[in-house]
Each structure stands twice: as structure tokens, then as C-alpha cells.
């Protein structure tokens, strides 16, 4: 039988605020346990939550970018369950009326086509703390630093039909939240977490199959692998006459399998009800209008502009707009050297290779955009060749001075003195009579030999165009 795969994703994006969603405690990652938890985060008696308005603004930003309905009034609810790292015995979340309603995101598939993925909702909530099961000799440690950290839970429609589509959606979302500056997107630190709802149904069937929810899939690669494993598992179960039970499954990256975490029967009755400590969250038209003015250019807009304004192909435009920092870097390069295509090649080639090799962020690049622009400018004005530029690049990376200083110091300036090049060319022709004869006899491939010899003699500094023209002339 042919099976159709149905996937929906729930993403928890940690909002990049300085303080928590309902208290003034700091949200910075990696502090000593329980040093960033105040009385409110600890769920002490009598304390009360107060909404951090910044989180609301970030949620609205996301809603606007996702073409979504922004609720004029949304409600915080309590999700009640007992767990040691949940200090109040309930999580403050949004249930019946989330701040962001229905919307959509367009994703680009591998074949270049565009697919629209529905956003069901996005709501604000607080994170729980962490239970630490190691290092306590059979006991459990509780770290409440993370308790109260603001999250935006973004729920998609079950619109994806393969793990590749799921990853494409997740990457689009990841790019978007970083563009909006509402989430740092750090998946290792858990700032951007994903759960996947996966089901299958016979091709052509319109009713949804029973789904399982996959957890612990916190990298793009794991999302793809976990979903693929789960699809295979479900097909096998059904084709062997079994049924899928609705459950939460944990992905085990070590052996690439998923296993039951809890069944539907074991699921909590969360007893949601509106939190009486918090008023309904009112969002005025004025606030939305104000936030609209702070919206950055979105990835899709930027991509379109890069193709139009810089004449980039869609692949290059896509890569260069994949993060705001990278796009900003690229545009800063083109400001210094008005050579968009050459700049794209350099940024995507040498620069990204070096950045990735050293595991750096583009903002941490030892070569600033201005310097790379100057380098490209020197290629463009024939001071150096593209090949020599790679040498300059290495020196630049080592922080050995400005582009011009390095060219000067290392004596890398391109020889553009026609007389000097001619002298060298004459010498080479004279010293290689055999090759000259062969060339004249029709072995045209030997042209490259002469170019190579000349470059060697000039240590690569001869202007390639001039050299070419001269050689062609002399070898006639």
C-alpha cells in the first residue's frame, strides 16, 4: 500500500528577553543552579506574577511575520500538574485564547517550489525548571534557574508530508525567529525545541491516522532521522496488522529509535482554567501598528531583494539571507566593493568555510565586512588577482593588518607593467623552444603551460588578463 505521511510540529522558542516572563529574575543561560530564581520563580506563598510586556511584543512580532491573527484579548491559564521542577504546581500558559491565532509560513522545497504551511496558533508560557538526576546519590536535584523563562509555543497545522518538509519548515521558522530578534535559536542550549506529531494514512484517505508525538529531537538532523524512523515503524506496525496507539515517544539518538514515554491513558488531566492572578492581555490596534514599524525585513523579502537588486541566483540569495547577521555582513561587503556577485562568492566561499572550520558566528569573524570589501575592491581594480587574494585573505584572518598593508608588506601587488610582463614572457618562450614548436604544431593545451610558467616567474602577481593577451600575441 502507498502511505501518506502527515506531520505537524510544535516548537518552543525561548524568547530573548533579559528577564523572565512573570518576574524580574535574569534569564541568562548557564548560571550556578538556583541563583537566577526569585521568590516568584520559586512559587513562594503569596507572591504574584506580573507579565513582562516585552514577551507580548515579541509574540506579536512573530504573529505579524507569520501573517497571523493577533487576539485583541488573550487569556493566561493555569496548566495544573505536580512535578518537582514545577514550583507552583501549575504552569502559566495560554489555552483557549492564545495571543497569536491562525497564520502561515511559506517554505521552499528542494525543487525550488513554494509550499504554504499553516500555523495553528502561537502562545506565551513559562518554562519549568530542571530536574538533575546525576550527582545526587540516588536523589534528584532541582535547578529553578529556567523556571519562568518566557517561551513562545508555535504550533503548525499537520501540513507537512515528509521529514524533508518538516526540516524545511523548522529551518524557515528558525531563520524567522532569529530575524525577528525574538529568539537566539540556540538548539544545544534548548532555546529552540521541537516536538513532532507524526501519523500515516493510506494515500488518498482524508481522515487523519492516529498520531504519536516525538520528543527529544533537538537538532535538524535528529528531527529528520526521528521522523523517518517513526514513519517506518508506523508502516511496519500497520502492515503487520497492528494499530498505532496515541502516545508520546522519546527519540533515542544513540541507536536512532523512538520508544514509548507515556501513553494517552497516562496523560495528565491538566485542569486548565483562567489564571485569576493575571488580567486578560489586551492588545490594541495602536500597539500592533507600533510594533509593525519595528519589524525588520523578513527572510523572504530579503531573498527577493537580493535576487532583484544584486542579480544573485536563488541559491545564493537563499544562503545569504539565511541569517540576518550573514545578510548584514554581505550587504556591508557590497557597500565597500560594488561587486555583488564577486562578494557573494567570497562570503559564501572563503569566508563561510573559514568561519565554519573554526566554529565561529559570522559576527565573530576576524575579518570584518569592510576588510573583505576592500579585498574584493583590490581584485576589481586589478591590484591583485583572485588567486593572490586568497593569500591576502589568510593574512587578514590572522589579523596582520589592513588589506593594503598586507599587499604592500608581502609584496603581492599584481604586476601590471606591460613591459615587465613582456620581458618575462619573452624569456619563457626563449627558454622553452620545444614547447613552442609543439604549440605551433597545434598542441594548444600548452598555452596553459606558458601561463603557468609566467605566473611562477611572477609569483602569481602578473595580471592574468594582460598575461593572456600578451602570450596569445607572442605565440601567434
Amino acid at each position, binding site marked *: 500500500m502507498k502511505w501518506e505521511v502527515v506531520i505537524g510540529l510544535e516548537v518552543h522558542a525561548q524568547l530573548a528577553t533579559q528577564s523572565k516572563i512573570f518576574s524580574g529574575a535574569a534569564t541568562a543561560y548557564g548560571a550556578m543552579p538556583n541563583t537566577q530564581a526569585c521568590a516568584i520563580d520559586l512559587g513562594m506563598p*503569596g507572591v*504574584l506574577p506580573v507579565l513582562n510586556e516585552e514577551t507580548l511584543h515579541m509574540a506579536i512580532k512573530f504573529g505579524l511575520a507569520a501573517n497571523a491573527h493577533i487576539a485583541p484579548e488573550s487569556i493566561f491559564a493555569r496548566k*495544573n500538574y505536580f512535578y*518537582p521542577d514545577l514550583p507552583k504546581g501549575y504552569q502559566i500558559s495560554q489555552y483557549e485564547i492564545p495571543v497569536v491565532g491562525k497564520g502561515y509560513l511559506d517554505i521552499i522545497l528542494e525543487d525550488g517550489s513554494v509550499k504554504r504551511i499553516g500555523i495553528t496558533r502561537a502562545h506565551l508560557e513559562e518554562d519549568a525548571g530542571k530536574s538533575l538526576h546525576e550527582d545526587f546519590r540516588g536523589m534528584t536535584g532541582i535547578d529553578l534557574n529556567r523556571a519562568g523563562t518566557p517561551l513562545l509555543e508555535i504550533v503548525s497545522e499537520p501540513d507537512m508530508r515528509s521529514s524533508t518538509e518538516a526540516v524545511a519548515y523548522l529551518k524557515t521558522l528558525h531563520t524567522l525567529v532569529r530575524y525577528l530578534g525574538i529568539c537566539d535559536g540556540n538548539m544545544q542550549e534548548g532555546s529552540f525545541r521541537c516536538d513532532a506529531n507524526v501519523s500515516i494514512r493510506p494515500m488518498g484517505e482524508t481522515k487523519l491516522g492516529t498520531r504519536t508525538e516525538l520528543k527529544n529531537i533537538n537538532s535538524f538532523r535528529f528531527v529528520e532521522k526521528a521522523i523517518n524512523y517513526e514513519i517506518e515503524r508506523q508502516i511496519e506496525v500497520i502492515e503487520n496488522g497492528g494499530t498505532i496507539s496515541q502516545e508520546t515517544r522519546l527519540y533515542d539518538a544513540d541507536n536512532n529509535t523512538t520508544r514509548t514515554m507515556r501513553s494517552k491513558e497516562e496523560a495528565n488531566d491538566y*485542569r*486548565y*482554567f483562567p489564571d*485569576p*492572578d493575571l488580567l486578560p492581555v489586551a492588545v490594541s490596534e495602536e500597539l500592533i501598528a507600533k510594533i509593525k514599524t519595528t519589524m525588520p525585513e523578513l527572510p523572504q523579502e530579503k531573498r527577493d531583494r537580493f535576487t532583484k537588486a544584486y542579480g544573485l541566483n536563488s541559491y545564493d540569495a537563499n544562503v545569504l539571507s539565511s541569517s540576518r547577521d550573514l545578510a548584514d555582513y554581505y550587504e556591508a561587503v557590497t557597500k565597500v566593493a560594488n561587486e555583488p556577485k564577486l562578494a557573494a562568492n567570497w562570503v559564501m566561499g572563503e569566508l563561510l568555510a573559514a568561519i565554519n572550520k573554526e566554529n565561529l558566528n559570522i559576527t565573530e569573524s576576524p575579518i570584518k565586512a569592510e576588510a573583505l570589501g576592500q579585498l574584493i575592491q583590490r581584485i576589481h581594480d586589478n591590484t591583485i588577482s583572485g588567486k593572490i587574494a586568497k593569500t591576502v585573505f589568510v593574512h587578514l584572518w590572522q589579523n596582520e593588518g589592513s588589506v593594503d598593508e598586507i599587499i604592500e608588506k608581502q609584496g603581492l601587488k599584481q604586476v601590471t607593467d606591460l613591459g615587465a610582463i613582456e620581458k618575462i614572457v619573452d624569456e619563457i618562450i626563449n627558454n622553452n623552444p620545444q614547447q613552442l614548436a609543439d604549440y605551433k604544431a597545434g598542441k594548444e593545451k600548452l598555452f596553459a603551460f606558458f601561463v603557468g610558467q609566467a605566473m611562477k616567474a611572477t609569483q602569481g602577481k602578473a595580471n592574468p588578463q594582460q598575461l593572456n593577451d600578451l602570450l596569445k600575441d607572442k605565440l601567434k
Partner: protein
Amino acid sequence: MTHYTLADYQQQLASKDISSVELAQFFLQQMAKHAHLNSFITVCEQEALLQAKHADELRAQGKAGPLTGIPFAHKDIFCTKGIKTSCASKMLDNFIAPYNATIVDKMASAGMVMLGKTNMDEFAMGSSNENSFYGKVHNPWDLNCVPGGSSGGSAAAVAARIIPAATGTDTGGSIRQPAAFCGITGLKPTYGRISRYGMIAFASSLDQAGPMTQTAFDAAILLNVMAGFDPKDSTSLDTPVPDYTANLNDSLKGVRIGIIPSFFGQGLHPDINEAINKSKTVLEQLGAVFVEIDLPHHDLAIPTYYVIASAECSSNLARYDGVRYGYRAKNPENLLDLYQRSRSEAFGSEVKRRIMIGTYVLSSGYYDAYYIKAQQARRLLAEDYQNAFKYVDVILSPTTPDPAFKIAEKSDDPVKMYLSDIYTIAVNMAGLPAINIPCGFSGHLPVGMQFIGNHLSESKLLNIAHQFQQVTSHHQKAPEISL
């Protein structure tokens, strides 16, 4: 000296007839003398004397405010930094908050001297003060009777003149009902008028702090300090605080007072009925006009209250799990055992009953039938009042159906106990202010009546109560043990 009011002590302090330290010492003696009433959970002798000394220093420097050096007590539901806050529960017997409730800060900043923390029903759940881990409180008018609850310790202490004033909280009548049983003045302000920050939550959408005093004048003085917006409480009202003493002497000429005839029928003790009738005559003499009104959905009040209050309490009390503070069961076998034994060993039976009711009404499959229905009923009750306030300025109602009942009389019958709040509960559901003042006696026991006003009408309520107290003496009567 015990018949003085807070306003009297203000004058005596201002004229330096007495020092803050002398006042504090006197009342600390009163507390020791009447320890058998069990109205206090914690006595803060050293802290109080230090505060009083500081108050005297301020006065000597000419920096005293109107409340500098005035002694009082907090209900043990308000968190006090460095001093135990138990909420009368075994669960919090070892709990010392590292922060002050907002009103604790406000009253301390005003220079007031806190003498101790008063007894109450556990987590403010109860109408008799029999549900305290620290034992029951006795009514100073009759030691065999309850003082009412949940603010029973505050009411008994003020009535017995052990202290001149105290704070209380009112979720369904917990200020007004004990005030009525003990013959004092108790004001439950508009929901949100006083910050709830640091006040241990029972039912967040109903809880409201207020002053418990001998007179309406004293209540106005305290409300001036307690009221106000608090950025730490999202539900506190961001509206200016008037001077609540400013309109106390306004004439009652033409004030329209609503009466709900059905409130005065069966179920109301005849002595209370008579006391209120006499009071009506007094109010008419003062110029007030009585208008009959109806609250058609009032019958829904008690069941609605027990759904909403219990639902909220089941969630509010989930934090007491033995993990971070408070009572923790010994040698738990596992996490579930830790939760179950910590909670079952440390909560009293009334608290457990309400947690179970609340958990039930919020459960999947019951939520719509109970919680949603109750919210709808709550809206109807609130609308009833809004309709009534089209025709009247305030509503006059009994505070309780009966005078104080005997200790243990109702403790085995929760429904009977719940019915003793029949006149007070709807007010909380509508978020309205109401004040209880003494209006007579049933035998040797005081009885009270309450005025209910529209949102933020505290000034009007205090004005009416004060005018009534200017021409009557019920509020001046003190129990024999205080004399």
C-alpha cells in the same frame, strides 16, 4: 485605657501624653493577659518594642506621620520578612518568608508597630476559626462560642481590646462575619483596592484584605494606608486613593439604601432582624431613604462560591508539595509518597475537602458543568448588584443569619457551616466593598449588619457607618473580659 480607639491613640501620641513604647508595652501585656483567647499565633514582642522605640525617636525629631507608633496586628496570612507566616497551617509552621507583603511594607513605612500575627482558619478556609493548626479561638463575649472566621483571631483581639486594630482578609465573608460575631467594625474593600502581593492566596479572584477596628473612623484611617495600586499585583486597581476620612461627616440626607425583603424572612435570627429594624429607624432619622430591591440570583451565591473558590484553592495550594519549603514528610519512599504524605499529614480536613472539590470541578468532563456554569452564575450575581445600584446608593443586609454559634456546633456539618456565610459571599463574587458594623445584641452576643456599595464606594460606606456610629453606641460596648 482599653476603651480608646485608634483615633484616640493618634491624638495621645501626637500630644505626647503617651509614648509609642508605653502603648506597645500596654498592648503586649493585654496580649499576655488574654492569651487564653488564643487570638495570636505569633507575638512579636522584641520587634514591636524596637519599632515603637524608633517611632518615638521619629516623633522626637518631628518626623512622625499620622500612624507613627500606632500598635496593631496582622492576620497570619500576610508574609512578614523574618517572622513566621503560618497561615494557621502545619504546612507552613516552619515557614519564614524572605519578603514582606505589600501592605506589611506600607504599614511599617507609615510607622505602625506590629505586635504579632493573629490566629485564623487554616489558609483562610472556615467560618469559625476552628480550623487552625494552632487551636481554636474563643469569642471574647462568650468563651464557649466561636469568634467567626477566617479572620477570627483579629476579630477576637480587637473586640477584647487586646489590640486597637488588626488586618484581615475576606474571601467570602472572612472579615465581616467574625466582625459581626465579635461586635467590631470590619471593612472588605473593592476587589483590587488593596494589593494581594504577599498575602497567601486562597481564592485569588475573591481574596481581599481589609481593616478590622472598633470604629468606621479607625477603618478609614487604616484604609488610607492599606489601599493603592501595586505594580506587583496585576489585579490591583490603578485608581487614585482618596482620603477616606474626608467624607465621614457628610450628611445622610437623601442617601438611598436598598433592602432586599427576602433577606429578612425565614432563616434570619429574630434578634438580628429586630436590631436591623431599629437601625433602619436610626438611619431614617439621619435622612436616609429605604428602597426595596431584589437580587434575583442570590440563591446561586453559595454553590457558585464553593465551585470557584475551591477550584482556585486547589490550584493555589498545589505549591505546598514538600519540595522547597514548608512541611515535608519524613523518609519519603519516592516522589509520589513525598507529595501524598507531605500534603495529607500537613493539611487539615477542611483544606483537603476544598482541594478535592476544586480538583473535581476542574477535571476534564466536569469543567463545563461546574466551573463554566459557576462563572456564568457569578456574572448574573454581579449584574444583579449593578441593576440594584441604578436605584440605590448602598444596600443594607444582615451580615450573618445568626449570632456566634457554639464551638463544635457546626464543625461536623460543612454545609451548615457554609450557610453561615449566606449574606456575605455574593459580595465577593461581585468584587464589591462592604462593611460590617455592630447594630445590637442577641442576648449577650453582639450582632452586625453590613452595608454593600458599588465598586470603589468605600468612602460612602465609611460615611454611612460613621454617621450611624455617631448616634449609636453598639460599637463602644466591650466584652466583660476586656474591662
